[in-house]
């Protein structure tokens, strides 16, 4: 078995959750790498979409912007942002990936600011398409490093909805039923959500990581799945494709 870094592990794990014949809206970076890897391994018919309008590209390299011309290079469609978002609203997009500065135990995400709204300590980009994708795609995932500041219930601003305040809260707010956060893939573990409480729970622990490490790096109380398994490390085939075909210039995996 080859050695691998944290980023390579996260991308490989994320890629395994994307099913063949599914649709996924991705941004740039690790999510795009995960979707490309899935296409080149277990899900060759996964349809990749970008929120600015690119659908089904044969990606020649990692896009730099979610609206650059790589996102529809030899693509099926170059369309518009409303068209992609309306496809999500119609219920035709299975997966999406989000990022953010903070996430709480219900999977709510902050990417707007730290501090008060009028004169924030740090202003971030805001929702972009994240709120829409989290509201409208069936399964929301996240690839992120895990630490106490990021995984906190003291979330400053809910930019994008997770399960809001618990079971049934999304539906009560008026969001389409049956969707929400699915898997959070971190450098320590894979976290899912408990069906009854909609709280974050540990499902897989990466090789060499302890339960204590996960607890120390989380700002709230985590639940634990009935059966917590060890994450299967990247296979040689996954690593070879990731390194040689998906990200040969190591833009993303170089950060691991």
């Amino acid at each position, binding site marked *: 078995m080859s050695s691998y870094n944290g980023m390579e592990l996260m991308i490989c794990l994320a890629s395994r959750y994307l099913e063949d014949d599914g649709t996924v809206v991705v*941004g*740039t*970076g690790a999510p795009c790498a995960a979707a490309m890897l899935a296409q080149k391994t277990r899900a060759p018919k996964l349809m990749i979409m970008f*929120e*600015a*309008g*690119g659908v089904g590209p044969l990606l*020649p390299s990692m896009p*730099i*912007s*979610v*609206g*650059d*011309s790589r*996102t*529809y290079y030899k693509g099926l469609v*170059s*369309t*518009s*942002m*409303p068209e992609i*978002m309306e496809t*999500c*609203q119609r219920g035709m997009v299975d997966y999406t990936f989000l990022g953010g500065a903070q996430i709480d135990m219900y999977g*709510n995400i902050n990417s*707007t600011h730290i501090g008060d*709204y*009028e*004169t*924030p*300590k*740090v*202003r*971030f*980009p*805001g*929702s*972009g*398409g*994240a*709120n*829409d994708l989290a*509201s*409208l795609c069936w399964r929301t995932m996240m690839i992120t490093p895990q630490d106490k500041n990021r995984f906190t219930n003291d979330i400053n*601003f*809910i*930019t*994008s*909805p997770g399960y*809001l305040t618990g079971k049934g*809260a*999304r539906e*009560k*707010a*008026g*969001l*389409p039923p049956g969707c929400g956060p699915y898997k959070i893939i971190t450098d320590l573990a894979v976290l899912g959500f408990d069906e009854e409480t909609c709280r974050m729970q540990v499902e897989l622990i990466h090789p060499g990581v302890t339960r204590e490490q996960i607890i120390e790096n989380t700002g709230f109380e985590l639940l634990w799945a009935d059966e917590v398994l060890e994450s299967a490390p990247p296979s040689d085939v996954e690593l070879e494709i990731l390194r040689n075909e998906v990200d040969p210039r190591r833009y993303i995996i170089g950060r691991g």
Partner: protein
Amino acid sequence: MANKKVDFHVTGDQDVTYKKVGKRRLFTNPDADEAREFFHAKSRRMVDKTTTVKEAVSKYIHDGDYFAAGGFGSNRIPAAVLHEMVRQKKKNLGFSGHTSTHDMQILIAGNCLDRCDAAYIVGLEARGLSKISRKGFESGAIEATEWSNATLAWRYKAAAMGLSFLPARSTLGTDTIEYSASVEMPCPFTGKKYAAVPALYPDVAAIHVHRSDIYGNCQIQGIAVSDLDLARAAKRLIITTEQIIHNEDIRRAPHSTVIPYYLVDAVIEVPYGAYPSNMAYEYFTDEDHLMEWLKAEKDEEELKKFLDKNIYNCENHWDYLEANGGMERMNQLRTQENLTDRR
């Protein structure tokens, strides 16, 4: 086949409650009749609208206006118009922060903005955050109202449809809606909850396209982002184009006309007019130049020198291109775009 009986609940005979959840300011009037009055008076004459960037910015963009840029931040932005706005020191503009990255960075460098509908602001995607853009918001100098990319796009769409609002299913339940100017309302047919987003009719917009005739009939290649709705929503519209083509070329492929002339007020031929952003099938983003921008922002003196070199000391877009490697650099970006730099 007999019609299947549809059983749906009409709430029309009940009291309907609207909830003003969004507590931030609405910067533009969503009223459809006010917009109709404006568009009623707008000329439909198919006349030669070619002019210069300087003229167009001076004539159609006024201090205090609400402005929107086409494209996607670092892709197909109307860079020549944005630079001219800075040179002409446009002030107190409202801005639609719809997928805005480098476009906003330029206008903030020129202190042009004082209010902003914020869907995506201050960042340059994976390239990092813009220090001066952050400062604009962190200091409170620019007032913001929050939206998401889709709700802001649908605000254009509502305006493009000649309406005053559209219902949307995103943003509900979050702080994004609390800090917007949306209203929650029940669907009149199903009773289900929607976020009502107000139509956005910008005073003026600028869009860079691949080809236009002298009248403003435009063709765009690649993704349209939200520009088809924006072109229809904006009261005044400035078009810069890589190339002016003959009207007969427009007529040869009418299915390719995505912006019709009657929406357009000014047409200017600006080759490489989206530089340093990406123009699909023409030239790729100048990533080095965008990194130079981010670096220059870290030091006030450096930024001043940088803006002098790239904006204030330039007479027009040709000077700006020249200051950044001229045609040799443009050709490199062309090979990057076409992937012919890979052998």
